Every structure is written in C-alpha cells, then in structure tokens.
C-alpha cells in the first residue's frame, strides 16, 4: 500500500495518520519535532510492515487535546487508538517522547502490543547526567545540538534545506506547545516509570546515538537494565535522531529485530 494520509476519530480527537506498507501492523510514535511521515527509514520498514504513523493529539494536523496533562495520558490514548484502528496486537516503535509514550503503554498493558522498539526515548531521569532543556534554546542552536553532524544526514536538504513556510512555523509552535503541556514538569521524565518497566517482558530493542546531546545514552543503559528482555544498540557518530541521521542502519536494525522469533 502506498503511503497515504487519513483522519481517524478517537475519543473525540481527530487523529491525522500516515499509513502505508505491507505485513504485520507496526505503530510508530513520533518525537517532539512532530510527524515527518514516510521518510527514508520508514519507507524501508514499510516494505515489511504495515506502518501506522499517527500525529499525536495537539501536534501537527491532529485535533487539540488541551485536557491532556502528561505522557501517560497520551499512552492511554494510544492504547485506545490500537483498539479503534483494529490493529490487533501491533509492534510498537516510538522515538524520543514517542519512545517514552511507547514505554508507558508497554508498562500499562504489555499484552496489548507485540515487540517494542524504543529509539532515544525520554521518560527516565538520567542517573548522572541531565536531559537537555529543549525549551531553553533558540531553534538554530537546538537543532545543532539535536544531531551529531548535519553533513552525514542524507535527507538534510529535504528536511531542513529551505526556510519553513508560515504553515510549517505554526505547526512547529503547536508541536512545541503540546510537548510543553505533556513534559514540562517533571521535565521529560516520569519518576514512577522505572518501577513499572520490569513488568514488560516483551522482546524490546533500544536504539541510541552515542553522541545524543538531548537524552544521554546512559538512559539507554537504564532502560536495558529495567526491561527484562531488552537489547541496546548504540550507533556511533549519531545524535538524538537516529532515524534521520542513520536511516539505513535504523531500518535494518528494526526489520531484523521485528523479524525475529515471535513472542
């Protein structure tokens, strides 16, 4: 199925969804930067899996959800989404705050999903370092800190090569506001999440960039220790956006992991 966009109503919220590919369903939850749709890594993954990539409520072209307060609200919402979209027991992949959301969903209802992929997820308080305060820095400075080296990014021109349109600026502001709504305090983590992660026995893959300056790679070690059946794959020369920075490597890791023995 060619990637296409549609809108689904869940709990009174109109959810914008990118959908495409073939194979077992894979739910993909985006990060604070918003839903980039079928970029290079996701097109590769969609050759093997039917990808559902919704835009979080309050982000992009999805409807408002001013009543949400925390990422666990978003997690409960997506458990509902899985039922509403009749996805059965999909694989679940989340990136950054989407990864945090995926971890919360798995902890709330481990049997609602099959395999779990967390890409640079927020959600845990680093044991020694800090999660960068992404609201504190001007956009150009933040972008420079988000990726390791723009020169190595194959889609840099398509994604960032021209100034944003007014509509894109409006969406970026919306994305930031909803991120603040969900993750302002405690900043980008849930102090209780660590207590629930040992419940998640689903096979889990954790992917991290060694040079991540947003969420330190030590959080990847923490997730690996807390999830009973997880492996951690650290990409060298990579920052906070592995699917953009190393799309081919990430797609291969994800396909290999999901194609393993079913749980």
């Amino acid at each position, binding site marked *: 199925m060619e990637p296409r966009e549609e809108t689904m109503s869940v709990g009174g919220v109109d959810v914008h969804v990118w959908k495409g590919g073939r194979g077992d369903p894979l739910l993909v939850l985006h990060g604070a930067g918003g839903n980039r749709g079928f970029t290079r890594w996701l097109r590769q993954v969609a050759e093997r899996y039917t990808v559902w990539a919704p835009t979080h409520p309050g982000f992009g072209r999805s409807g408002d959800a001013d009543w949400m307060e925390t990422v666990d609200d978003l997690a409960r919402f997506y458990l509902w989404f899985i039922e509403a979209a009749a996805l059965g027991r999909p694989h679940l992949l989340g990136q950054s705050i989407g990864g945090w959301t995926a971890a919360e969903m798995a902890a709330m209802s481990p049997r609602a999903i099959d395999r779990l992929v967390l890409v640079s997820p927020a959600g845990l308080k680093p044991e020694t370092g800090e999660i960068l305060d992404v*609201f*504190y820095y*001007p956009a150009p400075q933040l972008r420079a800190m988000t990726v390791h080296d723009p020169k190595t990014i194959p889609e840099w021109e398509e994604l960032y090569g021209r100034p944003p349109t007014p509509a894109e600026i409006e969406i970026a*502001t919306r994305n*930031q*506001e909803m991120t*603040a*709504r969900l993750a*302002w*305090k405690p900043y980008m983590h849930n102090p209780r999440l660590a207590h629930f992660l040992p419940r998640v026995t689903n096979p889990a893959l954790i992917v991290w960039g060694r040079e991540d300056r947003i969420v330190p790679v030590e959080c990847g070690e923490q997730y690996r220790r807390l999830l009973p059946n997880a492996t951690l794959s650290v990409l060298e020369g990579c920052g906070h956006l592995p699917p953009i920075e190393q799309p081919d490597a990430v797609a291969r890791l994800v396909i290999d992991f999901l194609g393993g023995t079913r749980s």
Partner: protein
Amino acid sequence: MKLYYFSEMPHHEFPDEEGLKYPSLRLEFPNRFFNPAIAASNYQRYLDEYELADQAGFDGLMINEHHSTPSCVNVGVNMTAAVLGRITRRAKILLLGNILPIEDNPVRMAEQIAMADLISGGRVLSGFVRGVGVETWWANTNPVHNRERFEECHDLVLKCWTDPGPFRWEGKHYHFRHVNPWCLPLQKPHPPIWVPGTASPETAIWAGQRGYTYVPFLVPFDIARELFDYYRQGAAEAGRTVTPDNLGFLICAVTADTRAKALEAGRHFVWRMGPTLRAPLEFMSPVGMRSRAGNQFALRARPRSLAAMSYEELIAEHFIIASTPDEVADRFAHIQKELGIGHLLLEAQESRMDHPTTMRSIELMGAKVIPTMGALA
C-alpha cells in the same frame, strides 16, 4: 492625575563587562556577583527613598517583584508592602504586582496581601500580573497554563477576600479542601485591583470586563491607545463606564535642579531598556505562555526594541523624562492629554542612580511637580 513613585531596587554593583559574558543578566548571570553587604545597605537606602516619596506627597508607592536578576532584587512584593505599610503614613501602596500564574498557594497570597492592607491601614492597591517568562522558568511553572492559572488564582484570591469561610476549592490547577483565612483585608469588599499590560489584548479586555485599573508599561502612545480600546471593549461588554481613574501609564522620570543634571541622571534608565532586557526570546516568552494573538500584537507593539533606541530617542518618545521640574510637569501634562489617564507611574530610580540624586528628585517632584498635577484630569 495621581503620581506614583517606583524603584525596582536594582543591584547593579558589578562590572558590566562580566554581565556581557552571559546570554542574559536574567537566569544566567551567576549569583556569585550578588553582594549581601551591598544588598543590605541598598534595601535601607531604597526604603528611605520610598519613605521620602510618601512625605513628599506622591499619591502612591509602587513596588514590583522579579527573580533571578540583578535588575530587581525586590523578590517579595508582599513582604515589601508590609514594610512600607509600617514605615509610611499616607500614600497608597501599589503592588504591581503579585505574579499569579507562578503562585502555588493563592490562599497564602490572599492572606499576605490582606495582612499588608491591615498593617498599612487599608492603603494597598493589589496589582495582579502574568509575569515575564523569566519568572516562569524560576518557578518552573508550565507556561502553557499561564493564562489559566492567572485567572484561577485571581478567582480564588477574590473568593478568599469576599466569601465567608470555610469553603472548598476544587479547580483545575488549585485544590484546597479547607479554605478559611484568618486574615482579611481592611478595605471592603477588597483592595482595588490593578493590572499592567504590554502586549496582550486578552489581558486588556479581561481587566476592562472587571473594571480594574489598567496600566500599559513603556509602550508608544498609539499602542497604549490601542490597548485602552481593548480595555473599553471589555468594559462595554460588561456595561461599565471607563473613567480616567481606570487608566494608568508607566514611564521613567527624574528631575534635578538643572536640566543638565537631570539629563545626566536620566541616563541610568537606559540600563533597564537594553542590558537588563537582553535575553533569548525563550527566556522572556517561553513556548505557549502567550496566545498567538498576543504574540502578533507584541510584534506590532514593539516595532523597534527599546534597546535599539538611543537615549535621545527614548526621551523624544516619552519613555524617559529627565528635566527641570517645570519641564517635567509639562511633559506629564502632555502625556495626560494624549492618553486621558488618571494615574502616572514613575520608575524614578534605576541602575546606578545614586542616593542623593534620587532623594533630590523626589524632593523636587514633591515641591514643584505634584502640586500642578491636581489640575489635570
């Protein structure tokens, strides 16, 4: 027209080149440059100046509150109000004001303002503000809740002052099972409420609907008029008549025995127009704190930043008035005529303006400017 004396109680006793090493004097400038001995003597000095302003005949003494910045070390507006309530005798005490969205306990705020009102013999004018972004960072309050918390905190403070306790409050942001403050304002039904504005049409409308005194800070005349129009729109919605007593304006002003001396003293206000406001946008206006309409209005309201204006331009545009008492009185009369206001708030000390200069300015205002104000408005 009534005149109000105001100092931000700055702590500008550090080398300016040190400040320039940081992205802003707010939040980032390390507090190792805070000098407790100097701050202790500054408080005495600033309070002496307020005391003289009371004696000199100012109608009101305005105080404000900021955090994490040398531009204002008045970190507790209710604490200062209580001190002024005891050391002054006559002038109103204008708190402009308490920063509602960052307050986690509106009941305590209601008690503290009430206590200041009682100590001062009913002289408190209770200003409520949304605060600049810096205070949101300082308090770590979610900026997307700024307006909701402003309004809910306001509603709970008013209820504390006007509804008999005990009562329960289960709101969206505030939850109190037993509200029964044993400290209520002397003024009935409650102290007058004031609201400042710089760029938010919503705040002007909101204040107009409630008949609160509304005061734009350091904006061009045409922007002040536009904000007053929003205020009138809100007042009309509630069927209220707007009088000069509902409207105020804030500028910087100093006088001296000669024009040259006043101009020299007035240069100290330039610090608050540029260096103390220098900051990334994110510090002053974190994401979600302002509405889209507020953001758009803010862009129009500041076609040129105050920091980009020369001292001479700041004087020409009435952001700063620095001259002999006669000329100062003329400029105040001009502002009154342009804006139709009943209250003029004077930021009358800044930066390194010294104590003798400040005291002399207060004396001259009292002797030669204040007596001419009664004929206005």
